[in-house]
């Protein structure tokens, strides 16, 4: 890996890692991050960013909160 020409080499490595990330399933993600399920992962920052762009494009639009996406998880957290 060190012998690769830097910029092109980086692109190739990033492409491989991107493909691996896309191939990861929910259980694998949860396992890698040490949580019981993916819904336990804090996605607030990325969700807020996506919501901001959607709502800027269409003020009437409403991006679902984490609660909307997984009410059972939130109920569990509340309990």
């Amino acid at each position, binding site marked *: *890996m060190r012998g690769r020409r830097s910029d092109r080499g980086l692109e190739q490595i990033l492409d491989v890692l991107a493909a691996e*990330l896309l191939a990861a399933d929910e259980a694998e993600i949860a396992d890698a*991050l040490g949580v019981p399920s993916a819904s336990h992962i804090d996605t607030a920052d990325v969700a807020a*960013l996506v919501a901001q762009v959607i709502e800027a494009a269409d003020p009437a*639009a409403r991006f679902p909160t984490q609660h909307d996406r997984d009410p059972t998880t939130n109920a569990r957290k509340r309990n």
Partner: protein
Amino acid sequence: MQGIASRSEETSADVAAALCRLSAAELVKLKALARLRAQGLPRGVGWTDLLHEAVARSLEGSRRLPPNVQIVAFLGGVMRSIASEHWRRARTEAGVLADLDDSSAFAAGDPPKDPERTALAIQALSSIHGLFARDPDVLKVLSGLADELTGEEIRQMYGLSAQAYEAARKRLRRAALRWLQGNDAP
């Protein structure tokens, strides 16, 4: 014209609907892809910039979501393209002169050398290498996949059993996920 506008609106609505359906796992992947594509970018450009721009372009309809392509994969491709654009822009703004004499570093058709890009790419590659430095099998698999070798070719080249290859690939994926969620510093 109306047809084009209408198709564009439909595309934007499709993208917005797909974004609103993103699961927690897909949001994790989206962030990981954004952080990945931010590696080696000009200073001051971060993962949030890439993701913001990718979502905005998709909603504007300047990037259309092809049928049967998942939204996360689509946005990953858009971010890849935006990352390349950042470098093209940085090169233009800086007025970098190509070192055309250094033909050894580039194959025919490659872009001219950009010292800043090269330095940042070396830094990013070094970070990624450091992430897997204690796992030689993962480095072999990563290197082989980057060279577009098949799994069988990688196994033969490095003398890996099918089991060792699969296990290394799984470790590669897990380490990348942890790193790109910020749990492991490279």
